[in-house]
């Protein structure tokens, strides 16, 4: 279902770009408004990151709910959606995750047309390398699960990997490449554009995007949410959704909740621009290292979290070096590439490494959190499912596994890494 746009919108196209070129770029309109917060909304979404913005967008687009405010304490898209390694994939294998990420990838594939915004979703193919028989078996299970789900996967042997990635160290590696799981529909997208595209789409449909507005309290009366307190005053709402991965524990605490979340720092890196040299997304099976090359030419790569709790959005040298070391081990041809910038994001680490999209014990209050370091690819389906939950009160079928009570019941745990309930090990 698609509802008509509420506010006047400006369509983007090659023709429009051409026309504005002739007019000296004089005709472009603000990509979103900067409204003052109203006194009351039907729905308040706390968090103007990827997930919050997509939730707002799908509330309007799928459910016709447009009396919505997105409250962002900083600037739109300033959290993890703007500081990740931009990988988009649907290569999960456990029920609950499989259907969700499969749905997300389908949404990605139609996102540009849907948003009328080029998020540069590039399905260049993702290859997960394996380095032992045991890893091969685990990836075989993953690949078969992907095909069971209707997605794509190809098991490459060593020679198959060599055809795609001739620059890997095939001769002298400490952990030789045995093969890889190839996910042709996997790839990357331009992260900021995703936030901006959803923001613009939501704004065009009448959603108020309110920046520099930090939520300081959640109002609850008789077990029911009634609004929020913010740095720009109190705002009433019939429903409130907490979509603040990275800060989930702090915001949930305002509603008296204690979450199964621990915050950790994940670093990422980009090199100076280089002529094309890596055409895929490549993931090392032995060294927590993944890499792709941006359209601008920078090698974008990352590794594991720093392993200690942190809200600092920055990491330390040991993990930085470890990531570079893994790069040298896997593909020593990148040795002369220079790292230009490194940064860190705050990861909502959950006990099974999978997210939570669920109602809470407080009526009208919805929770979306626990994306660990896999939140970027989930942005479309997460917003889709959260909007569905907020609008209908029912879990969406593609996200029915992300229940908060699974840790209590032990049912439907989705521990893809198999490392158990220690938050930082996922």
């Amino acid at each position, binding site marked *: 279902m698609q509802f008509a746009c509420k506010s006047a919108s400006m369509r983007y196209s090659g023709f429009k770009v051409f026309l504005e070129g002739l007019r000296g770029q004089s005709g472009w309109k603000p990509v979103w408004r900067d409204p003052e917060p109203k006194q009351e909304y039907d729905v308040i979404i706390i968090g103007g990151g990827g997930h919050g913005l997509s939730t707002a967008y799908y509330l309007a687009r799928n459910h016709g709910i447009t009396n919505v405010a997105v409250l962002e304490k900083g600037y739109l898209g300033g959290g993890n959606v703007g500081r990740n390694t931009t990988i988009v994939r649907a290569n999960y294998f456990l029920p609950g995750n499989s259907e969700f990420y499969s749905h997300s990838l389908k949404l990605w594939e139609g996102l540009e047309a849907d948003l009328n915004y080029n998020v540069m979703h590039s399905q260049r193919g993702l290859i997960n390398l394996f380095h032992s028989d045991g890893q091969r078996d685990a990836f075989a299970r993953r690949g078969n699960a992907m095909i069971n789900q209707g997605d794509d996967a190809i098991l490459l042997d060593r020679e198959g990997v060599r055809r795609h990635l001739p620059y890997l160290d095939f001769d002298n590696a400490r952990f030789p490449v045995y093969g890889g799981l190839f996910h042709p529909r996997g790839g990357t997208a331009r992260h900021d554009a995703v936030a901006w595209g959803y923001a613009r789409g939501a704004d065009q449909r009448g959603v108020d995007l309110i920046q520099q507005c930090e939520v300081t309290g959640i109002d609850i009366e008789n077990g029911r949410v009634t609004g929020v307190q913010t740095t720009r005053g109190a705002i009433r709402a019939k429903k409130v959704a907490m979509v603040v991965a990275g800060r989930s524990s702090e915001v949930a605490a305002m509603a008296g909740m204690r*979450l199964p979340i621990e915050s950790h720092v994940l670093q990422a890196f980009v090199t100076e621009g280089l002529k094309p040299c890596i055409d895929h997304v490549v993931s090392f099976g032995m060294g927590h290292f993944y890499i792709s090359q941006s359209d601008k030419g920078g090698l974008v790569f990352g590794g594991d979290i720093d392993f200690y709790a942190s809200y600092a959005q920055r990491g330390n040298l040991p993990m930085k070096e470890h990531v570079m070391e893994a790069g040298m081990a896997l593909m020593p041809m990148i040795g002369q590439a220079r790292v230009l910038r490194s940064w860190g994001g705050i990861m909502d680490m959950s006990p099974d490494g999978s997210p939570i999209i669920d109602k809470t014990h407080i009526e009208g209050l919805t929770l979306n959190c626990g994306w660990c370091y896999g939140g970027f690819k989930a942005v479309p389906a997460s917003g889709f499912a959260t909007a569905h939950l907020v609008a209908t009160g029912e879990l969406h079928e593609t996200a029915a596994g992300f229940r908060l009570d699974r840790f209590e019941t032990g049912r439907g745990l989705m521990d893809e890494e198999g490392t158990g309930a220690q938050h930082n090990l996922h």
Partner: protein
Amino acid sequence: MRLTCPHCGDRDLREFTYKGDALALLRPDETANPQEWVDYVHNRDNPAGTTSELWYHGPCGSWLVAVRDTTTHVTHRTLSLAEAGK
């Protein structure tokens, strides 16, 4: 980053392994109700600020509690588990 092992002194982060909130030391009694157990294993205060954490100093095998700020990474103090238990 550096941490102080109660036995070995000031050491580089590379020598340590993080486990999580020091509440892991407060293991419920066998008779505790299931909710207490679920809480113990899964739920965390996870403050943006000062917290107590468990770390393992691999070279000497000591576990320790670090009282550390998660926003500034300043470690206020570290204690051996024997000290922490007091």
